[in-house]
């Protein structure tokens, strides 16, 4: 088969294919038209979205830059003021009590222990002490 017959074959294939697209059923054509309308509507919908929300991109970018700048400033700036003391003098005393290993019940009976501490120790009898030492 020479080039002429090959060209004829290709032309006929193209023509037969094109002819087959002419006689499409009305239902097929309606579906194709509907699909095309949906695609074009999708394009227009996206266009209107970007037109309405055209401010969103620059505004978002500015907001992100602002937040990043403020965060950077806070992160990099040295502490200019002394830290607020966490506990005052009285609080320190209370905290020392809480953190100590002493029994907290003792602090509930503080009056008793004050009385006990105020009592003078009584001298022990001489005989009893000597007796103990000798025994």
């Amino acid at each position, binding site marked *: 088969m020479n080039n002429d017959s090959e060209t004829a074959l290709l032309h006929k294939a193209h023509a037969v294919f094109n002819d087959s697209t002419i006689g499409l059923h009305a*239902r097929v054509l309606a579906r194709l*038209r509907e*699909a095309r309308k949906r*695609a*074009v509507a999708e394009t227009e919908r996206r*266009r209107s979205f970007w037109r309405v929300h055209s401010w969103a991109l620059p505004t978002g970018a500015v907001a992100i830059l602002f937040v990043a700048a403020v965060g950077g400033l806070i992160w990099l700036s040295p502490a200019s003021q002394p830290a607020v003391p966490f506990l005052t003098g009285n609080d320190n005393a209370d905290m020392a009590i809480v953190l100590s290993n002493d029994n907290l019940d003792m602090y509930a009976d503080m009056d008793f222990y004050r009385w006990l501490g105020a009592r003078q120790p009584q001298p022990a009898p001489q005989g009893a002490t000597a007796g103990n030492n000798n025994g």
Partner: protein
Amino acid sequence: MPGVSLDNAAQLNTFLAGVERRAFRIAQMALRSPEDALDAVQETMLQLARRYAQRPQAEWPPLFYCILQSRIRDCQRRRAVRNRVMSFFGGQRDAEDDPPDPIEAAADPAGRDPSEQLAQGEAMQALETALDSLPARQREAFVLRILEGLDVADTAKAMGCSEGSVKTHLSRAVHSLRETLGEHWA
């Protein structure tokens, strides 16, 4: 998609109107089902509109057919999986069991002479059968380059290969079709 204008939508409408029938026939030849072919074309149109409407109009044809070929392959893969699953459960459905397609059974809306319609139908049937016997890439190259009429560069873009590969696939496809269809067909 800030670059899409109203003119762009109108241009897209014109482009799609120009290719929709041929795209449907290409999908129908590959899928053997008008409904699946319509779905493939519809998905292709939507994807082109969503993703590539802002591109220059000259890029639309290869993009459109690239998407269409992808949708066709997806559909064929889904079918293959479905058939495997159905055969596993012993319920494989034959094409002969399907109800007759009302679209294919309808009268010719172009009102052509029945003998002319018959000859046209037979020629198209022979071409489809011959195309079916080709490897996928050769069939793709022939359909896009000869039936759709894309140039070599656009065909290469649509197929995702080099222009040299397109020429090779096309040459082999034409050689095979010549042998399959014979002298009398042309």
